[in-house]
């Protein structure tokens, strides 16, 4: 009987969740000092998506365990920041967090009373959380109408039974999160970040810690998230990648990234950041030309 139920559960796993909810093992050879961060990351991603996603986190982290130039402190930071980025805040996550808060408060009479949370997303962010097969035609239509970046307010309420029911429906969409448009983009971002850390360890080990910390540029949701993402890509495309490619002779990449990050403002046109990157590039190219001439 148990095997029949297990087969039925496997058949419907896309709808009712994965059968096996055992957490993955810690990466092989993980230093003891990093165990708390990695365990926390696994716990977060189990709650966020499930064991398969937590396993992906472990596999990604495994690439840096025992690698030359990666000490426990750096590995801990990679583990912490990667868990935060893999647990990105989409409307599904906000619904999950609100429900968890509500369930915690239900057993605690001293907890603050239920409230309505009104958050601003963009249309593409909202639709992008749906499976690609559903989301892509809608995104194409929004793009055609010029509404892709329009802000849209979403209520996350635990005040009424209907509000809680709605949160549960939204949170249940996590089953399809890995098929979503947003997931594809987040996956590409995490891989690019890890790739840049890897290249830095090979080419400019001193800058690796700064590149690891660059993940903190991207946080939250809505316009703030988009701004951080655009700034990060501007930094990588303008300074980091050209340096690794050997096109830009930047002797101290870490300092250059720190300088450019300090110039970044909450400006969609990125004027200050782009100016700073251009100045750093001009200085580096001039210094390179002088060194070649002299």
């Amino acid at each position, binding site marked *: 009987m148990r095997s029949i139920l297990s087969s039925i559960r496997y058949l419907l796993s896309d709808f009712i969740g994965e059968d096996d909810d055992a957490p993955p093992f810690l990466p092989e050879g993980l230093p003891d000092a990093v165990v708390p961060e990695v365990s926390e990351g696994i716990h977060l991603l189990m709650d966020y998506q499930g064991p398969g996603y937590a396993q*992906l986190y472990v*596999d990604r982290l495994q*690439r840096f365990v025992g690698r030359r130039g990666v000490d426990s402190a750096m590995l801990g930071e990679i583990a912490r920041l990667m868990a935060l980025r893999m647990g990105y805040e989409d409307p599904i996550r906000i619904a999950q967090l609100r429900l968890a808060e509500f369930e915690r408060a239900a057993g605690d009479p001293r907890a603050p009373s239920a409230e309505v949370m009104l958050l601003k997303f963009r249309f593409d962010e909202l639709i992008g959380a749906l499976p690609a097969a559903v989301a892509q035609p809608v995104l194409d239509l929004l793009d055609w109408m010029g509404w892709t970046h329009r802000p849209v307010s979403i209520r996350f309420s635990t005040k009424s039974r209907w509000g809680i029911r709605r949160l549960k429906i939204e949170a249940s969409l996590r089953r399809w999160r890995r098929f979503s448009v947003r997931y594809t983009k987040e996956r*590409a971002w995490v*891989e*690019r970040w*890890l*790739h840049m850390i*890897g*290249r830095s360890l090979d080419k400019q080990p001193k800058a690796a810690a700064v590149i690891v910390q660059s993940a903190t540029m991207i946080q939250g949701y809505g316009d703030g998230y988009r701004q951080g993402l655009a700034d990060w890509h501007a930094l990588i495309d303008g300074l980091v*990648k050209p340096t*690794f*490619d*050997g*096109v830009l002779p930047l002797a101290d990449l870490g300092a250059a990234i720190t300088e450019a990050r300090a110039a970044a403002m909450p400006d969609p046109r990125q004027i200050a950041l782009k100016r700073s990157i251009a100045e750093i590039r001009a200085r580096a190219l001039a210094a390179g030309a002088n060194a070649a001439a002299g």
Partner: protein
Amino acid sequence: MDTSHLSEHAGTAAALFASVFVVATSTMRTMIPLRIFGILSNLVVIGLAIPSRGYLVIVVQSLVLVLNSYRLHQMLQLVRDVKRSVNSDLSMEWLKPFMTERKYIAGEVLFYKDEKAEDMLYIVSGRFRLVESGIELPVGAIVGELGMLSPSKGRTQTLECVEAGMILSVSYSKVEELYVQNPAFGFYFLRLATARLFENIANLEQRLAQQAPPAPISAAANPA
């Protein structure tokens, strides 16, 4: 003479006859026999529905018959193509009907080194480069065909689009599905993958032999 009881018995016998085929269809374990028995069941049910003028049954069964025939044709063609490929140029073109299109622009990265591989890619147009080795892949090249069988499933290099083009992709889960549904396909797929692996080893050995004096490191690759 009243013959209604005779036609009633004939109807019961016919329903029993059709049921035998339906039950036999359900006992099939793999896709090709399942489709063949499905087609036979459709034909029997259609044949039995004609005298009683069961038009709805005839229409529904005809539609299922067409679907079963198309799927059987697709499956047989797949086995034939993969078998032919094993015996000729080891190409993977037979996968094309199961692939979906994706367009890329210059500078876009398809995947990064060490990333977990989840699909196989076929280059249709444009220029794509494996950045760590600096090798440019020609149109018609397949990427990631061995990743499905490797234990780590990690990409061994980064693939970047150099000039806008199109790629066909098929997920490993889709290939696994074909493999499980069709043992003949599975067998020939394994032979094909092994043959390609041996071919790669032979190429590497040849390149190693050509590098008699250690060659200087070639121009730096520019990973994304």
